[in-house]
């Protein structure tokens, strides 16, 4: 006699998620820098802002900020990302 049991888990990979195409170069691109609200993120992103422009030829850097690091980015912040070629989300703990 055997026992039949059910799987307690769900498929952890969201159906619509997938890796996007990588940028070949950052030159002339618009890059978003998402400040997640952690205490040390600003100096980290200030530095990245500088090197993205000076060393990688990034045209524009869009500074974005989440009001609360433990909640999702609100709609206006997500909308502002739409104009970026790529967004870097930083932790800065």
């Amino acid at each position: 006699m055997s026992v039949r049991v059910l799987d307690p888990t769900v498929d952890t990979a969201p159906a619509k998620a997938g890796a996007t195409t990588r940028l070949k170069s950052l030159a002339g691109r618009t890059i978003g820098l998402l400040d997640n609200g952690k205490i040390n993120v600003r100096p980290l992103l200030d530095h990245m802002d500088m090197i993205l422009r000076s060393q990688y030829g990034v045209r524009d850097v869009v500074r974005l900020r989440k009001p609360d690091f433990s909640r999702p980015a609100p709609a206006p912040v997500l909308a502002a990302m739409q104009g970026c070629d790529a967004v870097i989300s930083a932790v800065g703990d």
Partner: protein
Amino acid sequence: MSRSRYSTMATQELQSAIYELADAVDVNELYQQNGWTDGLPIVPPTEERVREFLDAAGLAPMDIIGVESVRQRPISAEKAAINAVMAGCLPNYMPVVVSVLRAMCVAEYNVHGSTASTGGSAPFIVVNGPIRTTLGMNATHGVLGNGNRANATIGRAIRLVLINVLGCIPGQIDRSTLGHPGKLTFCLAEDEEDSPWIPLAQERGVPAGASAVTVMAAEAPRQVMNEWTHDPEEIAETIAAEIRHNMLTYSVWAGNYALIIAKQLRDLFVAAGWHKHDIREYVYRSARVLRRDWATVGKGNIVARGGGPDQEFTALRSPDDLLVIAAGGPAGGFAAVVPPWYGAKSLAVTQVIGPAQGDQ
């Protein structure tokens, strides 16, 4: 015997993959190897048992109990039932488990933030109303400890859902640095019979006679003792001191604190004519620290920041932030402070136990 009432539900197919194994020992070994437990053994979630649990909650397998909004993860009734069986619940615990999950999916609870954080909190569950006695829950001896099936397995069922449905696996979505023992289970009933105070759920708007759960993302309980006075202000001051200590050594931010007061201290408050709101008012006034106090606990480097050394912080945003719970054994001048995970980033949520809106 109640199956016929849910005949439509009972006919909906279970969706989960099925594994066929020799016996319960083999089932446990498979689930342990796959990381589908909290480390302790599980009860085999058979189709028959899972259906019993769904029937007990009046739910169909694909009913959605709630959605974790950050990663958009729905919690289906079927998965909740499977995990409740595994935790060792009885079928009639299922409405409590469902209500806790519903409460945790309310936005203010912030289930993703509180379960993913390095802070390592756990859902602290308080059950009120007649269902406590129906399920034989413990509200007295060792109420924060071991010994009662419903207390132990309801809390454990929530943890297994977090692991298996929301992916809160330590080192993966769950980034707890330390965690605490309440992450295995952290559930109690209020001692409504042996307290003249208004039960927690009623204070939070649930009608008398209804059953409800209150859930809060909490750190480990901090036990205090004062057996050297009958003065309610002195007892309340011992409690406030522990909260101040938590503010200085752990997190200063104001939010919900829970306070569990066992019988001996409760009787002294009651004899002095104090109700729960008197305790809340006292703690609100007294559980405050100044930024300069951080210098006394090795955090002098942040005294000059923010509003400077005289900046005042309160533990509670208002007296109502303190959840006062009558529970614990009869002897000993003990109480326990249950601190919030991270100020008001997660708030306590109270949910009536019963059919959800739209059910039936």
